[in-house]
């Protein structure tokens, strides 16, 4: 194995390799999906009402309202902006806080102008004024005439949909590019008979495979990091997360190399991708629906990528909590590596279609 030759192959493949649909889909689809999930599912399944505020005189009230978890508060710079946001449904209700609002609250009657979105739900129309009143009372220092105890019933935990869908985004970002890039590249080389040209140089099949694997893995790592950045999920152990992503990317790339070695055309690759997608994305479904028994996830090899990622980025756990899963993932990577070594050593040049 000559690392200098591998580096040359990587450089040439990156610069002169095909920039086709697979590259476009590998790079753009995960980013668009992550953006969509973040934008859409961050809010779509929340019942929280949205209040827009145009604060004319820098009142304390927006700060107090923002700290409330029962509604979402957005600020606007003018009344026309506020009205436009209400008309579009960006907020359920928009209020204009008048000049001297804070001082008037303690001395007399304050009149607040409010705009209500016509499609706002009745509960939001009822609750937003309640939360508003509660915050004004907090501001004016009212003494609460009651003590409220809150008691949770049951042991089910609330997992927001943005978190439930995160495994799918992460898996897609790491595994689509990681698998399809090396597989597509090998199939492309086989179809164009360029592997034959490479074979007459001093580059070995192992070096060619390694170069293509590295490209796939690097792309998978970059896409995984980008997706997590968009989703805001680096957690408290970013280095542990990067380690998991690196191992996941290597695993994806190894699967891609095996597929590329055994498959001869792109249609078959896509057909296998459609079937194999279930095996790859199975853990994402387990994470999406907590009703599915957790043990099912352990069957899928990609579970050992998703679980540590979720533990770190969503559950806030540290490296110690993920050691077992990372060790299993490392084991899978080693086994896959041995399989590829076997393939490169034992597959005849004919089965790799080096001579057409």
């Amino acid at each position: 194995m000559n690392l200098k030759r591998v580096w040359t192959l990587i450089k040439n493949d990156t610069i002169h390799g095909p920039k086709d649909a697979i590259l476009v889909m590998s790079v753009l689809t995960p980013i668009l999906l992550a953006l969509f999930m973040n934008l859409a599912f961050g809010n779509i399944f929340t019942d929280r009402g949205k209040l827009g505020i145009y604060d004319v005189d820098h009142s304390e009230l927006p700060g107090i309202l923002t700290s409330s978890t029962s509604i979402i508060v957005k600020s606007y710079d003018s009344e026309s902006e506020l009205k436009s946001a209400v008309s579009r449904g960006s907020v359920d209700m928009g209020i204009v806080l008048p000049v001297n609002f804070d001082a008037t609250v303690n001395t007399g009657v304050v009149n607040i102008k409010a705009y209500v979105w016509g499609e706002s739900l009745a509960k939001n129309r009822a609750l937003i004024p309640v939360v508003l009143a509660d915050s004004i009372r907090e501001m004016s220092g009212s003494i609460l005439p009651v003590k409220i105890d809150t008691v949770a019933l049951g042991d089910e935990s609330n997992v927001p949909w943005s978190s439930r869908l995160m495994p799918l985004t992460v898996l897609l970002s790491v595994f689509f590019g990681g698998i399809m890039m090396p597989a597509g590249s090998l199939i492309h080389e086989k179809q164009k008979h360029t592997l034959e040209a490479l074979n007459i140089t001093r580059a070995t099949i192992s070096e060619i495979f390694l170069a293509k694997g590295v490209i796939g893995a690097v792309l998978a790592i970059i896409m995984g990091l980008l997706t997590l950045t968009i989703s805001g999920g680096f957690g408290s152990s970013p280095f542990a997360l990067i380690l998991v992503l690196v191992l996941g990317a290597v695993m994806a790339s190894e699967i891609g190399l095996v597929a590329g070695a055994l498959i001869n055309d792109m249609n078959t690759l896509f057909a296998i991708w459609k079937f194999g997608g279930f095996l790859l994305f199975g853990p994402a479904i387990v994470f999406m629906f907590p009703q599915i028994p957790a043990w099912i996830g352990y069957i899928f090899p990609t579970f050992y990528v998703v679980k540590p990622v979720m533990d770190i980025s969503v559950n806030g756990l540290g490296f110690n909590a993920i050691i077992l899963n990372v060790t299993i993932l490392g084991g899978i990577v080693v086994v896959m590596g041995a399989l590829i070594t076997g393939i490169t050593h034992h597959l005849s040049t004919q089965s790799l279609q080096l001579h057409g």
Partner: protein
Amino acid sequence: MNTRNIRALMRKDIALFINNRFYMLLTVIGLVCYIGLYFVLPSNVDENLSLAMYAPEMPPVFNQLTSQPGTAVQIFSSETGLKQSILDGNYQAGVVLPSDIMEIWNHGGIPVITVYYNSGAPPEVTTAIVALVKELSYAQTGQVLQFDTTGEVLGNDLLGAQIPLRDRMRPLLVVFILLMETLSVASLIAVEIEQGTARAILTTPLKVSDLFLAKGILGVGLAFGQGILFMALVGGFNHLPLLMLTTLLIGSFMVVGIGFFLASVTRDVMSVTGWGTLVLVLLAIPGIGMIIPGLISGWAKLIPSYYLTDAVSRIANYGAGWRDAITNLGILTGFSIIMFWAGMVILRRRYL
């Protein structure tokens, strides 16, 4: 124009479409999934904050809550029954008032009110109910807040007649069904060019315009047929069916036009799939904006599918008429003509 040859070409394309398992599968599974998804989604909107309450002695202000718009309060006869109902998932939260609440307040004391909530409930539910209980307690003890609001409702006031999520999704789903045909049409043309059969066909008496016409009719027919099937099943023709049909037809022209253009700027079927997916995502954005109000603003009008999605949404969900939809339909028609023309010109120059 040779209609016999066009028909023969269309028959060949239909066979090609059916034999292309990837797009055939996408079309059939997609259609079934979209229809299934529509019926799985909730058919009504729960506008009210559902709340369980156990109050051996009901303070007058708390009693008003039972008739307040936006809240649906169920009074329980025991605390145990209330807790069980929350555990069963019938209510996300419940309030238990002490039996001597009025007596405590009358003596200047501070009673303890318990708010039970299902541990799976979103946190905002509990905080909202706590805020509600606090406000009612203030009102009951005579601490009236000195503030007043003057409200103005912007847009159609749909209080009590909200559009369910599944109906909000109708424009997105039907536009997505149509958009899938962009890929099919572009793929049909790309296959002809990639395999060199387009040139072979043109050695027959068939003209270039006939070739495009055959592909166009097939593409529009496939898109329009699926659009009609979907909208018929999900009640999309309940209001002004002719207007909806016209909108779908123009939408079908638009997607085929985009398909022609896509095929003209890509090299092969793989490129069509890659770039087509990107175009598909871009064109779906206005539909996503329909289900998440306020997500997109004026910039979405730069995306041509906005005018299709907006027209479908207005007609199906807001009872719009010809006059409301005519501008959108005009823009769509203009855009479709440009796409058709550009696609044909580029294809003719590049390959034929």
